[in-house]
């Protein structure tokens, strides 16, 4: 539900800046590294030394094509780098190399899931945090398509540091490690109608970027930044209201809160009979308020023109086709395939496709053991629990899909009991190893030898004569107790099916 009165709706368009995952910068051979000492990841090109020239990092083109294809967009065979001219200390050349009139990617879309109440209004979307829901409204999920206007390549600027504790005085310092890091600016259509739709879009986009290996899109590291264009209008108004742009939103919470705060600010103005003025806004998360940074009419004239140091970027259709061929399966496609190919529940498919690494882990495990549903259970339950408890990543575990697959296979073959497998699992997670060798080493191999099982069964029957009599009198309940006793006697190694069979035969004849 919107924070606005029902007769109003928000109109939101988003601009996302995402760092591309490359080894070196967009136009220089300096490595892209986070957390280096200031100005320790720079090349004369990044410092705009007199006489240097930019050379395009081809990897950036590859990654941009990937994103373009994944968002169903046109990858333009001809695009142009332009200079955006303005003075700022963290912009070494006095211009940013960007793409202006002819971007590399144009006109795409992506789908988001929006929760819709019975009145047809969007309630909340995707994993957006739940807002007060209308009483009695029954939310259902609905798919909504968000248009993407364009995506273009540009370079990031450095950072100005005004912090006295770092600068050592009230001077400002400049760190150019980030200057020249490749960015894709992805601009959406004004298709979102609530703050929750906005974050659902951002999450879907981030998931795609990560799946494709286009960007790590870590908001905390500034690798995924968002500007929001917001306006409000009466629900049936034929035209958009005047919009404002909120700059530099660096968390999903801030995106939602800032959009709602700005919408409310605009509502107050409108209800007071005042005009909305086009402006660039800043959001203060502590005070939950947006405020005007500068008015659009005072905005810089960037004097864009094609960069004469760079030739237009021409992309061979064969190149685009090759990238398409090598494109990894996207989250949505994977989810659908898991449901059909492995007969997984929607829930399991959803959990297992949260990241590409987890999905690949599952598929490799399933292949190793030939029991996809069992593999899914192990991963959604045991593997994810371990990751959560250890507060680590999947890659940090010593457990490999091969190990887990083999462990499950041993259980499926009846050579290892589920209980023994659970005992082995923590060792595999911490130290890894060959499950079969470990099983043998620890003497955990399931006992399926009829003679040996008969021995345990006979032992338990003679030690529990009264319970056995109950069963013989027609009460099946104590059977489980007897089962447990046999398993205990066998130290968990007896194959349960055989134990059950032997018990039944020996007690009932």
């Amino acid at each position, binding site marked *: 539900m919107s924070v606005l009165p029902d007769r109003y709706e928000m109109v939101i368009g988003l601009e996302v800046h995402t760092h591309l995952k490359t080894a070196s910068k967009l136009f220089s051979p300096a490595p892209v590294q986070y957390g280096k000492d200031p100005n320790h990841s720079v090349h*004369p090109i990044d410092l705009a030394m*007199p006489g240097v*020239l930019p050379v395009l990092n081809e990897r950036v083109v590859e990654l941009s094509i990937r994103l373009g294809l994944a968002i169903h967009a046109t990858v333009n065979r001809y695009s142009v780098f332009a200079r955006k001219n303005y*003075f700022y*200390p963290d912009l070494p050349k*006095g211009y940013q190399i960007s793409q202006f009139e002819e971007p590399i990617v144009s006109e795409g879309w992506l789908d988001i899931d929006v929760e819709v109440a019975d009145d047809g209004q969007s309630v909340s979307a995707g994993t957006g945090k739940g807002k007060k829901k209308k009483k009695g409204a029954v939310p259902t999920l609905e798919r909504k398509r968000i248009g993407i206007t364009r995506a273009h390549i540009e370079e990031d600027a450095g950072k100005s540091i005004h912090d006295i504790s770092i600068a050592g005085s009230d001077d400002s310092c400049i760190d150019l490690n980030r200057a020249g890091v490749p960015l894709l600016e992805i601009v959406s259509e004004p298709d979102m109608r609530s703050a929750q739709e906005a974050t659902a879009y951002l999450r879907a986009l981030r998931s795609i970027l990560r799946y494709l290996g286009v960007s790590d899109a870590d908001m905390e590291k500034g690798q995924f930044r968002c500007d929001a264009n917001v306006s409000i209008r009466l629900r049936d108004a034929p035209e958009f209201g005047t919009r404002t742009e909120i700059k530099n939103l660096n968390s999903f919470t801030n995106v939602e809160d800032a959009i709602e705060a700005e919408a409310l600010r605009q509502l107050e103005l409108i209800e007071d009979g005042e005009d909305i003025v086009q402006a660039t806004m800043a959001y203060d998360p502590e005070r939950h308020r947006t405020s005007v940074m500068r008015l659009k009419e005072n905005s810089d004239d960037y004097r864009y023109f094609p960069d004469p140091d*760079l030739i237009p970027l021409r992309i061979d259709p064969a190149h685009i086709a090759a990238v398409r061929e090598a494109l990894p399966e996207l989250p949505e496609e994977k989810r659908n395939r898991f449901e059909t190919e492995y007969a997984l529940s929607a829930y399991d498919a959803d959990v297992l496709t949260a990241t590409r690494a987890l999905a690949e882990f599952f598929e490799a495990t399933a292949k190793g053991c030939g029991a996809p549903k069992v593999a899914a259970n192990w991963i959604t339950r045991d593997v994810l629990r371990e990751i959560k408890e250890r507060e680590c990543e999947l890659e940090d575990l010593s457990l490999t899909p091969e190990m887990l697959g083999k462990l499950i296979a041993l259980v499926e073959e009846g050579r290892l009991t589920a209980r023994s497998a659970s005992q082995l699992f923590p060792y595999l997670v911490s130290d890894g190893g060959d499950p079969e060798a470990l099983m043998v080493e620890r003497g955990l191999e399931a006992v399926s030898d009829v003679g040996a099982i008969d021995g345990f069964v006979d032992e338990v029957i003679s030690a529990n004569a009264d319970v056995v009599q109950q069963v013989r009198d027609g009460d099946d309940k104590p059977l489980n107790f007897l089962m447990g006793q046999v398993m205990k006697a066998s130290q968990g190694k007896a194959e349960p099916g055989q134990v059950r069979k032997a018990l039944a035969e020996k007690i009932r004849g």
Partner: protein
Amino acid sequence: MGQAESLLAGGLAEIREGLDRGDATSSEIVEASLARIEKTAALAVVVSTRAESARAEAEAASKRIAAGQALSPLDGIPVLLKDNIVHAGEPATCSSRILENFISPYDSTVAERLQAAGAILVGRANMDEFAMGSSTENSIHGPAHNPWKLDHTCGGSSGGSAGAVAAGLVPIALGSDTGGSIRQPASFCGVAGLKPTYGRVSRWGLVAFASSLDQIGPLGRRVSDCAAALQVIGGHDPRDSTSVPELLPSLGGALTGNVEGLTIGLPEEYFVEEGVDPAVLARVRDAIAELEAAGAKTVPVSLPNSPHTIATYYVIATAEASSNLARFDGVRYGRRADKVKDLEDLYMRSRSEGFGAEVKRRILLGTYVLSAGYYDAYYGQAQRVRTLIRRDFERAFETCDVIATPTMPETAFALGAKADDPLSMYLSDIYTVSANLAGLPALSMPCGLADGMPVGLQLIGKSLDEATILRVGDALERRTDHHAARPPEIA
């Protein structure tokens, strides 16, 4: 005059022969060059030397040459770089206060290639500030003096490079040419100067004036010296995205002396009496007649968009310059104003104090033509006309192999004569700028004197066809002795 001194007074070929024969060592030549630079300091054509390093490098070159292991025809030869071509560890002032204490931390491609070929980079040549100017008067190092007449300009912006070659300080110097900045001073100083095809020589390490027009090229005593130098500095460079991938052919082999059957186009727009010194036009016609006598044919050609070249050039060049020079902001290197109040003050004062009047004029012009509301009328329009000018040449080259024109409508003018009239200085670029706009190779070479001052013939070639203009120029040189004319002895 010692052996080295008299060799140095010749051209590359004489020095090379002398070195290879053992008449002199590279050390002696370099010593003679340094001494001569010092002796002629009043010319202000050289702004800095690196005597110690040059001596050490010359010693190594001398040993190589004595052992018969010369690296290239330039091995052991003293060469000057224009002060806007960076050389690691050396100043690169670009004749600007804003870079007066700047030392480059890295090498240009041409400096690297010259050094790899064994050339001895003895120092740096005076120029107009950031290559903006046609007289080498816009310089913190003071105006360069023309060796032919000391109260006249060397031309510009590569005036120091041209003057140094003319005065016999070095046989070869590198310049840069954005609208004629190699050819015009070559013409004024009576030396050969080549602006290669755009993209033929890497711009990596050339401090940019107008990126789509700038091109590094050699100046030498002879056309063949320019060919030898281009052979070393030319060719593809992955550090310059506008560098052409095509292989540079063997230029020495192209200098056959034969022009028989070759067609020279004479643009009718340029061979008009109006606006040209008649004596200049006469020398140029003599040179063409000489080539005809050697078997070349001439045909009239038309470059109908010629009247628009100056306007087109000054819109594009200033637009690019306004952006290229934004990096000189007093923040990371170069001059920063003292006691600034705030960021705005730092920018305003560093740039106001750091740039000279001509640079400021062009930054203002360039900023204006790119401004919102004016872009289409100026920059956009200029780009469209540039395309038309390029097509003019394509059409002209359907009927000829090279195009001949005067390099300049006049001979060198007196120092200060045009200092207050920038427009007349801009207009005298009429014959040279079109080759930059079209990206074509063009050579200026001496073709005689008018009133005791050198006149230049310009030969414009097809794209990537430096070989043909060098061949024609060399053939003319073999039939005449204009290149041997020397300025009156310099005190």
